[in-house]
């Protein structure tokens, strides 16, 4: 590690008596005084000192591990120096027992006071012979903090004895831009799951799905992701076109008489999100959500029974026009309202694929909806409607054939990596381009959280999507499937009436802040130079290696491809991404810190 390393692991033996140890965010403690297997490359163990550094307007993070070999009660206290401006946030790390293999990995982060009383083994986590409790420490450096080096002190006391450790925080003069380098999206579907995750709220409310608690919960999820430099999407309709009442204005009438009868639930849901007031207490500037799905689908607002007939056009145009007018009157002009189709014909409700379109015959539907949208929305409207499609099989053809129809592309990362020329093509005509990909499970090094996000940045596109980010599985606490989608857990079992973050979401946030800093550094160093350095630091690659050489398969009809064909596409550099060492992103961060320190 360089002299400027933001995190320094100290090698040493695990203490036999009570102790407090530290580790970098990339090295997760286990419940027995060590480092989890996935993060233990290089023989890393918990250490006794740590130095973190960052520009202002950002977080630095690390793990604290309370060690009590003989068990018992303990108190943990974290204090920040006065006048530093620093603010500490402490989270108890929940050790999830994996369904496969039974290993324990920390991920859900339960917020606790910076003066915390606990017991080992933890009575709630129920781990036999547990001797260590891990905590995630977030240290917020406000933009107005005086630059300097500060000691954040963590102390544990048990049985009348205390141990204190210092986390040195170097606050640099630079400020991390509040604007993100790209959108990191967290997707979810509907809101029925909220009732399952928050039984306490359901019990407390008569009509939960129209209650203040329900809308507060939705806003809480948005706030959680927003605070973590991300965004949150909830799709509000099903594959057959059923629309959740809170996702769409209520309609009445048919044909020429179809109209919006009530905005009540829609405005309660979206109003605070679209005017930004939902984020008023945030450490980030409160601003409206940048994107939102519209409830429009083949069955709403026009009924498919009239598809191809004048009545379909009338119902669609009248209602969408009313929506445009409502949004304009409310001043909701900063958010992009997405016309997006999620259905697939394999689910048997409509005859064409709205999502991941595989058959070119289906393009005609997109063209028709573009025509209808253009009829509904005045050309000079300040309301920003966009037409989004999530593309995979035929994306290369769609880029050409649906030019001027689709202007928001969300592309499967694997296939998109064959088409580097698509970026200038699409962005050159003003389209928005995101990629989508998976989320690493908890038994992989957290650094893998960075890969999909960093790839989107490396490709110079506008965003990256993870799906099912609120679904923890049937028993995340004691029989965990690995969490290869979830990044926000329900807090209900901890007495918290809202979502709690995952450790991986924290890592993602810190990566997002680094990317914002890189975007700033690009202005002086140039994008090519910065990308070359980041690729080298991350995994010894070049920016070109973040793309996949165009395979011969790409020249054949996509309708004939199988997933096995896709799996067989040669990816000469795949190993470099599949087997990252835990410190891969820390090296990027060190590079950023060096650049920041060099600047006047």
């Amino acid at each position, binding site marked *: 590690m360089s002299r400027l390393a933001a995190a320094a692991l100290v090698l040493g033996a695990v203490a036999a008596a009570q102790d407090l140890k530290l580790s970098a965010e990339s090295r997760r403690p286990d419940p027995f005084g060590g480092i989890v297997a996935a993060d233990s490359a290089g023989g890393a163990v918990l250490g006794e000192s740590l130095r973190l550094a960052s520009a202002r307007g950002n977080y630095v993070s690390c793990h604290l591990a309370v060690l009590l070999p003989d068990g018992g009660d303990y108190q943990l206290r974290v204090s920040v120096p006065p006048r530093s401006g620093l603010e500490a946030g402490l989270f108890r790390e929940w050790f999830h027992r994996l369904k496969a293999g039974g290993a324990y990995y920390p991920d859900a982060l339960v917020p606790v006071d910076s003066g915390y009383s606990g017991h080992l083994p933890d009575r709630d986590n129920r781990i036999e012979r547990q001797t260590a409790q891990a905590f995630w420490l977030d240290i917020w450096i406000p933009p107005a903090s005086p630059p300097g080096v500060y000691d954040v002190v963590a102390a544990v006391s048990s049985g009348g004895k205390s141990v204190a450790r210092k986390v040195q925080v170097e606050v640099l003069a630079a400020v991390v831009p509040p604007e993100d380098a790209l959108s990191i999206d967290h997707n979810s*579907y*509907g*809101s*029925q799951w909220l*009732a399952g995750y928050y039984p306490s709220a359901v019990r407390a409310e008569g009509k939960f*799905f129209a209650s203040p608690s329900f809308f507060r919960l939705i806003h809480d999820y948005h706030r959680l992701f927003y605070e973590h430099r991300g965004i949150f999407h909830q*799709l*509000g*309709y*099903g*594959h*057959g*076109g*059923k*629309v*959740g*009442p809170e*996702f769409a204005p209520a309609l009445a009438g048919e044909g020429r008489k179809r109209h919006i009868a009530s905005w009540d639930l829609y405005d309660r849901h979206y109003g605070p999100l679209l005017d930004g007031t939902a984020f008023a207490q945030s450490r980030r500037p409160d601003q409206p959500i940048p994107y939102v799905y519209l409830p429009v689908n083949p*069955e709403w607002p026009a*009924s*498919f*029974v009239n*598809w*191809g007939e004048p009545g379909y056009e009338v119902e669609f145009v009248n209602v969408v026009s009313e929506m445009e007018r409502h949004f304009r009157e409310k001043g909701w002009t900063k958010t992009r309202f997405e016309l997006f189709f999620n259905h697939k*014909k*394999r*689910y*048997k*409700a*409509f*005859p*064409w694929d709205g999502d991941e379109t*595989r*058959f070119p*015959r289906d393009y005609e539907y997109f063209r028709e909806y573009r025509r209808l949208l253009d009829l509904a929305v005045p050309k000079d409207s300040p309301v920003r409607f966009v037409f989004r499609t999530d593309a995979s*099989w035929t994306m290369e053809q769609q880029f050409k054939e649906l030019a001027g129809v689709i202007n928001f592309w969300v592309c499967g990362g694997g296939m998109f990596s064959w088409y580097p020329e698509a970026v200038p093509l699409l962005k050159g005509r003003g389209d928005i381009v995101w990629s989508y990909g998976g989320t690493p499970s908890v038994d992989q090094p957290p650094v893998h959280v960075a890969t999909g996000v960093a790839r989107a940045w490396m490709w110079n596109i506008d965003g990256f999507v993870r799906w099912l980010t609120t679904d923890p599985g049937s028993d995340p606490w004691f029989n965990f499937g690995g969490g290869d989608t979830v990044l926000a857990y329900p807090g209900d079992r901890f007495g918290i009436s809202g979502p709690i973050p995952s450790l991986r979401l924290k890592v993602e946030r810190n990566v997002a802040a680094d990317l914002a800093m890189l975007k700033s550094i690009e202005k002086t160093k140039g994008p090519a130079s910065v990308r070359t350095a980041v690729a080298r630091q991350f995994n010894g690659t070049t920016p070109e290696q973040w793309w996949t050489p165009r395979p011969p398969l790409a020249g054949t009809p996509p*309708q004939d491809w*199988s*997933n*096995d064909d896709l*799996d067989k596409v040669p990816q000469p550099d795949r190993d470099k991404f599949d087997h990252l060492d835990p410190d891969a992103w820390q090296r990027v961060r060190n590079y950023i810190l060096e650049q920041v320190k060099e600047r006047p």
Partner: protein
Amino acid sequence: MKFPAALSVALVAACAQEPPADLARDLDMVARTASVMVDGDVCKRIQTERSMGYMLKEHPKDPWFASDNFDVNHAAYIQTKKTLIRLSRLVSFPCDVNLWMPVPANPPRIQILIRNVHEMSQFWKWGDLHQEIPEEMKRVLAGEGRITASRRGGMVSVLAPVYDSLGAIAGLVEVVGRPAQDPQENVK
């Protein structure tokens, strides 16, 4: 609306019921009408030949091989779906009329081929491209006429045959409703 006169009478009668006095009776009325109105020859043309060719193929390394190749002829699909939607409007409560078609296999299987807005069905497991033929459906396909079933989540389904121009049973409809709706269900 383009309903035949006879159906208009039924529609008026049905719309007067709120909530339904007898769910099964109302669904049976829709099912009986569906047997007359749904064109079995058109239904047989819905799935493309290419798609049918992939339907029963299994790829050793691609579990989505058949579903990725599922495709339909738009005109036949749309014509039939519109009929099914109109049929569901014969009652004033939320109702779906689903189309089920046999899949030539050994032993024979069946697929839900058109679903509708409430995504109700007592027989479909979400995501299945095709499935074993439930006993109730076997009986309908064997010519026993309409059958009422209530096996899942308080739903009531009336299964009714769909005929082609030769008088043969081409498939069946599942006319399904339930006493209480969950507005958030199936929004996913």
